[in-house]
């Protein structure tokens, strides 16, 4: 689905991402884990074309369709190509209602019927949002905002969902709900690239993972195996190695 080769990103004099390569297969959830400042968010922003200075080859390969070179698209065309980013810090429009936020997610979907169908479907599954449909998004709790941000991304009918720290700052019960939503999106066929600081959670829900350390991928493989890997356990899972 997504094929990234030699992605580089420089801010001023600092190389945040130093030529990384990875891929996400169709219908797969892949995690990108690493410490603060390792370049995880930068990588996602580069993929979403929010940082036009990034270089490298980023190809979207939807099954049965022509490949799309994402690096040639302006940021606002990405969602039309089937890539939706749920940004770090949620990025809901606080001064618009929950319903308006959801509709904005489908801004590029011209088929009204399809939009309404998705809307009803999501609200059915997310009663918290349904109750608050006419409230301003700024009045929601952090967890509800995160749920809204993900639901809004799903409104665009993405093939590939990029999630930036969906568990950040949320209570455990809310994290559980959010991940239920994420997992059900994957089950419905959406490919997912998940950036998480909560490595244990990320490795549990993903099938494969890459470990990012100061702009390099230092480790990659099967998530279940990485969970048992001594280096990962020591550095990211807080386990003492005896």
């Amino acid at each position, binding site marked *: 689905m997504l094929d990234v080769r030699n992605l580089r990103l420089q801010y001023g004099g600092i190389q945040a991402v130093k030529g990384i390569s990875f891929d996400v297969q169709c219908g797969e959830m892949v995690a990108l884990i690493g410490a603060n400042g390792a370049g995880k968010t930068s990588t996602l922003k580069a993929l979403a074309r929010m940082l036009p200075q990034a270089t490298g080859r980023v190809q979207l390969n939807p099954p049965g369709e022509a490949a799309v070179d994402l690096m040639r698209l302006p940021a606002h065309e990405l969602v039309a190509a089937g890539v939706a980013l749920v940004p770090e810090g949620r990025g809901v429009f606080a001064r*618009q209602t929950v319903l308006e936020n959801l509709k904005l997610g489908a801004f590029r979907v011209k088929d009204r019927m399809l939009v309404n169908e998705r809307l009803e479907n999501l609200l059915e599954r997310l009663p918290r949002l349904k109750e608050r449909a006419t409230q301003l998004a700024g009045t929601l709790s952090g967890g509800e905002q995160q749920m809204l941000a993900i639901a809004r991304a799903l409104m665009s009918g993405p093939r590939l969902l990029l999630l930036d720290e969906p568990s950040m700052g949320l209570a455990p019960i809310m994290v559980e709900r959010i991940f239920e939503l994420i997992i059900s999106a994957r089950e419905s066929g959406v490919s997912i690239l998940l950036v998480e600081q909560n490595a244990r959670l990320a490795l549990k829900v993903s099938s494969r993972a890459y470990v990012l350390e100061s702009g390099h991928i230092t480790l990659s493989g099967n998530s279940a195996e990485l969970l048992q890997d001594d280096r990962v356990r020591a550095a990211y899972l807080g386990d003492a190695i005896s």
Partner: protein
Amino acid sequence: MDIFLQQIINGLVLGSIYALVALGYTMVYGILGLINFAHGEVVMIGALVSYSVMMVLVPSGLPPVLLALISVLVAAPVCMALAWAIERYAYRPLRHAPKLTPLISAIGVSILLQNLAMMIWGRGYHAFPDILPAIHFDIGGAQITLLQTVTIGLAAATMGILAWMIQRTSLGQAMRATAENPAIAELMGIPVNRIITLTFIIGAALAALAGLMVGANYSVAHYYMGFMLGLKAFTAAVLGGIGNITGAMLGGLLLGLIESLGAGYIEDLTGGILGSHYQDIFAFLVLIGVLVFRPGGLMGERVSERA
């Protein structure tokens, strides 16, 4: 004649015009955080283009109302194209520059347009032909002319359509989203640059209409008119809470009323020391007062959030 009621009517006419111009300031500020000081000049160009079109058409013997209609249909696209060019060449290259830079660019554009207008239309005052027959209605001891009625009605209708467009259409929603967070708006697939251009263009269409209204009501158009009008409309936008659409409408009407009533009573209040030609001081007293006591304006709480 009831002076109070008469000044209320005059104030509503003036206020409608301020409101239309203030909307242009406030929409651009809302979306870019930029005070487009060249906006007053767009009104001036609108007024002078309208004037020229009418003068060309007067010999044709068309009814004056039709002249006004044609002139605004010419002036509006001219202003829209001008606003497009200003945004594209004077502001967009400076999008990521420090805030002071586009402000200086705005003042530069303003001076450029004034001089350009002076070269085309000369330094004189241009009198508009009468657009509507000089009919007036009496209400409670005051008079309202047909032109005044039409001005207020047209401004109200235009503002109503604008408010509906911003609150109810998907374009309006895209504008609100862009104003709130352009980076996230882009993620939604909103072409942010096009929305910004459209915001300037919509503001310019309102400016063209305001230009015609100024010319028709006060029968003056000249190359320097945009300066004072622009400052007053900016004051109106600040009074209402800059960045807030409803605030700009309210601020415009209020400022028109304050100025009009002030001009009507200043002579009595100061025992004849100051006459009605001092009416300009009211707008700026309001501006200073708002900036000192309520910098967010009447409807705005967003200014502090942005600063």
